[in-house]
């Protein structure tokens, strides 16, 4: 299908799950009880995506809190810090690298299998990449940022191998930190080479909220098939550099501003998508929101995605796809 639609990964957590997570933190809810709520929320999230008509689904990350902390909790070598500020009045617990990194068992494969069992559509597997894991953790163990990143790359590669063996055909690696320190792009590229080595599934890297222009076109050396990028939030400033140096990979084109409460109209989303067609071949475009939807309300997330689907169908018709 032309212009496949997908999402970046996270969906808003329903109130009952937020409540259960809070109670779990206080020791008032058992792990197996929390798991039931997470499974229920995952089922609802997948049903929602099927109803809206998305083409490539995600599990919604109902069982994850912060995108780095979740993996740190499943890897040996990490501790978790006390509360630190993210921005405004938001706080989180940040991973701390305290020793050699080891993956005692697969981290996301069970959840992927469960999620895939709930739909006939392909289920995208989503992991946080090694460079972002390193950059967003405190490090009390490694001698250098390079050493930490490459150690993480090795264990994340093992997870990809297991996901592929389980049947995952689309795997997304989130590396939002890549666009922040241009001097370390070669490190991120080296790490991604390790992560995706020998993996035949479609490999997507998601990058957001940084200076993409500063890492383009060098970023195309990341060993992936597709770049899922946050673009609408910056009003498509990036399209000019993409025109100047050919974009040699697939683009996951961000058409929904996930930091805005406003639900875009299908017309507005259609306008955005048509801009993609000016720059990229239509068979190289996937359509998705800028970033994860977890900070939106459930109604906003649904409304935005419905507009995205409606707009994509209209554009497909226009181009005879």
């Amino acid at each position, binding site marked *: 299908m032309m212009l496949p639609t997908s999402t970046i990964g996270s969906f808003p957590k329903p109130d009952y799950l937020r409540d259960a997570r809070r109670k779990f933190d206080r020791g008032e809810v058992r792990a197996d009880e929390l798991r039931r709520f997470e499974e229920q929320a995952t089922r609802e999230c997948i049903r929602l995506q099927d109803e809206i008509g998305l083409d490539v689904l995600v599990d919604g990350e109902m069982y994850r809190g912060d995108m780095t902390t979740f993996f740190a909790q499943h890897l040996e070598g990490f501790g978790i*810090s*006390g*509360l*630190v*500020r*993210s*921005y*405004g*009045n938001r*706080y989180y617990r*940040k991973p*701390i690298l305290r020793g050699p990194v080891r993956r005692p068992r697969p981290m996301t494969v069970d959840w992927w299998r469960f999620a895939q069992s709930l739909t006939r559509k392909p289920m995208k597997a989503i992991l946080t990449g090694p460079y972002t894991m390193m*950059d*967003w953790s*405190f*490090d*009390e163990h490694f001698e250098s940022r390079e050493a930490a990143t490459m150690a993480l790359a090795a264990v994340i590669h093992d997870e990809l191998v297991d996901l592929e063996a389980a049947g995952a055909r689309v795997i997304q690696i989130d590396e939002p*930190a890549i666009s*922040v*320190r241009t001097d370390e792009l070669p490190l991120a590229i080296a790490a991604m080479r390790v992560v995706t080595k020998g993996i035949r599934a479609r490999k997507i890297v998601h990058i957001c*909220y*940084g200076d993409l222009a500063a890492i383009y076109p060098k970023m195309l050396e990341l060993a992936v098939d597709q770049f899922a990028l946050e673009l609408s*939030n910056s009003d498509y400033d990036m399209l000019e550099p993409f025109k100047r140096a050919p974009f040699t990979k697939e683009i996951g084109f961000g058409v929904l501003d996930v*930091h805005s409460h406003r639900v875009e109209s299908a017309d507005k989303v259609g306008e955005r998508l048509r801009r993609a067609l000016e720059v990229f071949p239509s068979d190289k475009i996937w359509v998705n929101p800028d970033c994860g939807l977890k900070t939106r309300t459930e109604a906003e997330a649904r409304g935005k995605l419905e507009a995205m689907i409606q707009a994509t169908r209209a554009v497909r018709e226009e181009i005879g796809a």
Partner: protein
Amino acid sequence: MLRSAAVNSYPRVGDRGGQQKLRAAIAHHDTGAISDEELRAVADEITAEVIAEQERAGIDLVTDGQVRWDDSLAPIARGLAGFEIAGLLRWFDTNTYYRQPVATGPIEWRRPILVRDFEFARSRATRTLKAVVTGPYTLAKLSIDRHYGKLGDFAMAIARALRSEVQALASAGATFIQIDEPAITRNKKDFPILAEALAVLVDGLPKTTCTCLGTYLGELAGLFADVVDLPVDVLGIECLRRDGTWSELRKHSFSKGLQLGLLDARNTRLEDPSDVVERLVEMRTVLRGRDVWIAPSAGLEFLPRETAFRKLECAAEIARRAQERFA
């Protein structure tokens, strides 16, 4: 004389009981459940708490912890006429964000922005309380300019406006005023703009006011020959590396005081005080006879509160031990 200093921010929440009070109050204020006055009362209480905590760590030059600041720019920009506040942007290469100010008209100072909170904090401090103002260059560099057209003109307009603020702080009794200009560490070619704006900003301050240029989240290496001529009394510099700004200290003759960011404010790994003391002893010919403050490399609010406290304890211990070695 070697002493210890906090740079600017300090964690406003912590993991212990009662340390979430301000977070809860801000959330309640956002929903309208509590008034501005009620929020201010909680912020006052937390300000007093973090000042006491810094003093307990042994810090000589403390701050209010900037516990009321949602980021480093918006609190200043909101207080000036001519700014609006727009979307979230990453704060340098950290995993934190700030709301980007937008200049939509002439930037003007209308009324004191930080003075009330400074006076409250000072009334709670038993050590010297540092006042911190985000500098005109960094404010201009990180904001969107829809009015002036040139970065230099924009920065100068902010400098003229903020000059009234630093004067008001001095009149309110601020004896140590730090002007934060972190953006210069990553945009060294802009130095002439910073120099010009800073000169306007501090012009006319009483001689008794100690002024400090605060730089962090990057080094001043390559710029040190220029910064030593700036019209401030103290240079606040990050020197986590031996081969960066630290190695340049020896190469220039200058009379300014130094606030040395020797403890990594971005990592929980605790430095060994003995290592840092040895570094200072190696640099004793440069440091002796000068006002020197041992400090974290930046504000501490993005560390867990207990780690932040231990970093400050470490700074105080280093200052004490190095002073003994120098004596």
